[in-house]
């Protein structure tokens, strides 16, 4: 209904349309407007009926980061579980998940298709800085919520994009929590940075220096790498020369982190590795670099890594394993793209439950941004969300050779 109304509204003032046509169009438009008003009494967004809620997303099912498209598979599996349990308030959930190839223009095209042709109620958890950048303004203009998007780039968290609802802690928060640990535990340590040469890497290096403040001079060397570089050995050799105490490695792919851990050990350099939460998995990152070489590494965490060998008796991890075995049998459980959908799936469930029968886009946004204080499956002990679903609280963890162990109380990012 909404879509048609807008088409007529745009068509009416056209210079080529005759006066008669314009009048006719206005009249039809008015009629539709009235129809729209009647529908809105029921407080349903497009795509919502008494029986169903339709949502959409785009995922990089093809292209360079296709490993992350497991997020879409995980989202589907979680909704399937909810539907088998009767759906939410009697409504079944339907997710249309389209391929964007990690190409921003394609993400926009597919998102427009979802909104304008498939009439989805909202976008659920599309993935990646590029695709989300490309669609943020369109969704904001259209007032279509994008709930629990998958990216940590700081600019998406501004009031410029009020329909974007985060759950992933922004990179600035992650950098802040890690840096506060340095300031408290190793204030005089010499620090070097190995960072991915893009917004992600630079966000972390800038965040580190900003929080260090007067101590920013402790960062004595910064070296970048390209995601396509076959090896970062050369960079690590340059950094090892400084004999620094701490090396921060800011990377999205696992390879540079594993290579840095191994090369430092080969060179006989034993710094403390400061690893980003996205690349600290025991199984996919540390094992390749050598578990014995990674002992003492520091990172921040808000959720349990269900593939961590030390957590297999944890009740949350057991529940996650049962869910995986039932809904995505045979999948590689080490891929963290299967971990996030489970966590944010519970957030979505909570939002839709509290929205009740007022499933208008306005109310969905309002409910999503006023979460009660709550803990969720797979969150570390002591970590909760409140207000927006964004996770602001983390704990510092240290690698002991087999598993990550929390070594700090929850730290809440403030800046």
């Amino acid at each position, binding site marked *: 209904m909404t879509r048609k109304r807008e088409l007529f509204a745009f068509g009416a003032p056209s210079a080529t349309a005759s006066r008669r046509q314009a009048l006719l169009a206005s009249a039809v438009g008015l009629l539709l407007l009235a129809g729209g008003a009647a529908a809105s009494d029921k407080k349903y967004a497009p795509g919502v009926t008494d029986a169903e809620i339709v949502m959409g997303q785009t995922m990089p099912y*093809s292209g*360079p980061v*296709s*490993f992350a498209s497991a997020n879409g598979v995980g989202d589907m599996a979680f909704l399937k579980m909810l539907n088998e349990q009767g759906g939410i308030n009697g409504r079944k959930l339907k997710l249309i998940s389209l391929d964007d190839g990690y190409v921003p223009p394609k993400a926009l095209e597919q998102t427009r298709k979802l909104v304008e042709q498939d009439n989805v109620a909202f976008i659920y958890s599309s993935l990646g800085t590029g695709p989300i950048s490309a669609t943020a303004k369109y969704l904001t203009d259209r007032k279509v919520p994008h709930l629990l998007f998958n990216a940590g780039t700081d600019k998406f968290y501004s009031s410029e994009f009020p329909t974007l609802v985060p759950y992933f802690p922004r990179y600035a928060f992650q950098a802040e929590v890690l840096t506060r640990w340095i300031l408290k535990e190793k204030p005089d340590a010499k620090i070097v940075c190995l960072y991915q*040469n893009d917004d992600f890497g630079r966000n972390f290096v800038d965040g580190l220096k900003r929080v260090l403040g007067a101590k920013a001079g402790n960062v004595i060397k910064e*070296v*970048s*790498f*390209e995601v*396509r*570089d*076959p*090896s970062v*050995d*050369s*960079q690590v*050799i*340059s950094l*090892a*020369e400084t004999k620094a105490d701490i090396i921060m490695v800011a990377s999205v792919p*696992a*390879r540079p982190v*594993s*290579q840095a851990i191994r090369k430092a050990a*080969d*060179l*006989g350099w034993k710094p403390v590795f400061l690893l980003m939460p996205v690349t600290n998995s025991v199984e*996919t*990152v540390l*094992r*390749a670099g050598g578990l014995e070489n990674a002992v003492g590494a520091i990172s921040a965490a808000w959720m349990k890594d269900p593939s961590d060998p030390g957590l297999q008796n944890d009740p949350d991890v057991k529940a996650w394993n049962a869910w995986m075995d039932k809904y995505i049998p045979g999948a*590689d459980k*080490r*891929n963290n793209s299967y971990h996030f959908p489970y966590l944010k799936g519970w957030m979505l469930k909570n939002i839709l439950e509290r929205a009740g029968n007022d499933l208008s886009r306005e109310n969905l946004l309002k409910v999503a941004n006023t979460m009660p204080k709550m803990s969720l499956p797979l969150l570390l002990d002591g970590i909760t969300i409140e207000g927006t679903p964004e996770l602001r609280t983390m704990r510092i963890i240290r690698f002991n050779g087999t598993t990550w162990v929390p070594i700090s109380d929850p730290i809440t990012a403030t800046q």
Partner: protein
Amino acid sequence: MDALLFQITSGITTGFIYASLALALVMIFQSTNHINFAQGEMAMFSTYIAFTLVQAGVPFWIAFPTTLLGAFVMGFVIERFVLRPFADAPVLTIVIVFIGLLVIFNSIAGWIFGYEMQPFPSPFPHSWGTRLVSAHQLGIAVVTLSVLAAVYLFFRFTSLGLAMRAAAQNPVSSRLVGIRVGLLLAVGWGLAAAIGAVAGIMAAPIVFLEPNMMAGIMIYAFAAALLGGINNPAGAVPGGIIVGVLENLAGAYVVGTELKLTTALVMILLVLLIRPAGLFGRTLRTRV
């Protein structure tokens, strides 16, 4: 000073990897005048085969030749059934077929083996290594030089090698003296795929095994092949080593790491502009 030595040895190691893949590129270029853009992905796929065999308990030094044989068959079959129908097609068509192969291999590998990075064990005993040169670095040098020697001996001293050289240089005359040019083209593809598999298996312990592992290496291998002379297999090794060392030194001391990958691209451009035959290539003149 210490760091400089490490930069050079690390550059030589990666240089040998570039050299093996460059050798595979040169093999196909010699017989068909085409650059196979899918060479890196075919190598990656072969490496997964080796990995699967090793995972299944096959000892490495049995899995290695088995994989090379498998790669040979793969290359042979691709030439016969995918490339042959386009034998007389314009160059652009062939390029598109190569890019298609690249995407297909990449996606199939991800689909079958997953996108998670796998550690790949080095087959060389640790005791070989020193602080400056690790066992694997030494092993790569030995293996790459052996492959080069084998290629040389094969072309120089076997009748099949002679026939392949003839088929590449003058297909019409070769056909007239009874050489099956078409079959030998496929054999050439098979050999290139096997050499690529060596490159993949040697690279995997360093870059780790994942479907995109060869993407960066392919750019450097291309630079190495051009620098060494795209029509001279022996040039691939010095080409690879020069690219590997220059890349490290330029990144660490001259242009900075931001332009490390760009260095390879600039090298490609410079060679094409100044000396298209490369350092060790033959300059071809076509008489009309």
